């Protein structure tokens, strides 16, 4: 009973506080998504890289594309030295801009306005992930090159970090509110799913990448089956462990 009374008294003191403290409280509630974020790349880099992206379908993720981009943006060949990681900066630009574009390109109907039930978190995640995969469509014939560069030991940590940010962005946009350990497992499993589908898509010749969609759905099913299996295993391990400890305690072992 004591903690409840305590919390009541705390709330009570909050409530009797005069009104002028309210703006201070509101100022403390900062949500980054309610504010405009600074652009992810400086202006000069951004102009070279966005111009270079237009040359990727023809020239791939190469220095040639970067040099053409620099020329188009009014710079010189030598100006590509502005990008310390060279071609990887071009790939990174694609990854970051496509991740940030996700929040504008995929719109969900707001709850209450649609007939029937609102989209679940799972359906939203599926829609967002497929939208992100489709964003690679125009350059998919060059994407294997990019994956090879991303897998180089120098760039692998940055690539994995970007994949984690993408998974986080998707779960956030899907309005996932989990605050337990599933926060991690959700992001980890989505990262794995996305990476697998991304590689599958580079060899997908079906119309509108319908096979990639099927592949993704099948993996999604695997994950949910795997998830319930892992849950059961965890429960069993926990129960057995507790029992073993208790048996030992009953024998007088001090644990």
């Amino acid at each position, binding site marked *: 009973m004591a903690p409840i009374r305590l919390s009541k008294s705390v709330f009570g003191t909050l409530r009797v506080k005069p009104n002028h403290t309210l703006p201070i409280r509101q100022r403390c509630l900062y949500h980054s998504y309610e504010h405009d974020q600074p652009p992810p790349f*400086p202006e*000069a880099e951004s102009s070279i890289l966005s111009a270079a992206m237009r040359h990727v379908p023809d020239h791939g993720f190469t220095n040639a594309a970067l040099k053409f981009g620099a020329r188009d943006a*009014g*710079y*010189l*060949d*030598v100006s590509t*030295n502005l*990008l310390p*990681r060279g071609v990887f900066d071009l790939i990174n630009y694609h990854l970051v801009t496509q991740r940030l574009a996700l929040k504008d390109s995929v719109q969900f109907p707001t709850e209450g306005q649609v007939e029937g039930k609102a989209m679940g978190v799972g359906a939203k995640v599926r829609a967002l992930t497929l939208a992100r995969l489709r964003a690679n469509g125009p350059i998919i014939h060059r994407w294997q090159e990019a994956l090879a560069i991303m897998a180089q030991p120098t760039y692998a940590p940055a690539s994995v970090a970007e994949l984690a940010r993408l998974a986080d962005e998707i779960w956030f946009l899907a309005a996932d509110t989990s605050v337990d350990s599933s926060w991690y497992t959700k992001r980890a499993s989505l990262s794995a799913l996305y990476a697998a589908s991304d590689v599958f898509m580079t060899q997908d010749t079906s119309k509108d990448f319908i096979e990639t969609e099927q592949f993704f759905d099948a993996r999604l099913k695997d994950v949910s089956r795997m998830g319930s299996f892992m849950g059961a295993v965890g429960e069993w391990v926990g129960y057995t462990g507790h029992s073993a400890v208790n048996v030992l305690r009953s024998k007088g072992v001090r644990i």
Partner: protein
Amino acid sequence: MNDLMSLGIHRLWKDHFVRNLNPGRNPLTSSSSSEKGWNILDIAGGTGDIAFRMLDHASTINNDAHTKVTVADINPDMLAEGRKRALETPYARSPRLDFIEANAEKLDMIPDASIDLYTVAFGIRNFTHKEAAIREAYRVLKPGGVFACMEFSKVNNSLFDAVYKRWSFSAIPLIGQVVAGDRDSYQYLVESIERFPSQTEFRDMIKDAGFLVPGQGWEDLTGGIAAIHKGVKPA
């Protein structure tokens, strides 16, 4: 002498420096034929170390037979050494290589906005007015042109720094005395390295001159013994 003092590592640095700048305009992947090759100015490059590497890279990697390097040095003896060494390269009597005697703080013979790439390798440390030299670099570079500087810098790891300090203050003057018979010059060398600004300070000097710096602004070589600083003139 340089090989003895740096255990040969200065060659690796120079190769890396040139490879990263990737000089030369590949005729196979460039559409407009209006401009051929880069116009490179190598300051304090009397002996031609950087210049020959630039031309080799442009010719063999980028199939570019037009890129031109102007080597400038304040010291005529160094230029004479460079001219002598140039005779062993294919560029000695070609219009692609030029030697001029010039002070980096006052490059009056070089017109404004005429240079693609301005390099200075292990030279800027000895300039009296570094800011003036950087401003002069900004003037001669075309918009979009690159200022690239390789220079001794500050070691990041304190343990490695202790070893490196021991080497530079004890061994290098001794090597100078034994091999070149000139202890004082090499004592000056290590002291000038010690006095040169740190990576961040020098990066800010480049920024203050109006350059855009890529990423963090520098790249450490061998734990920070040397560092490559770059700046791009905004277009």
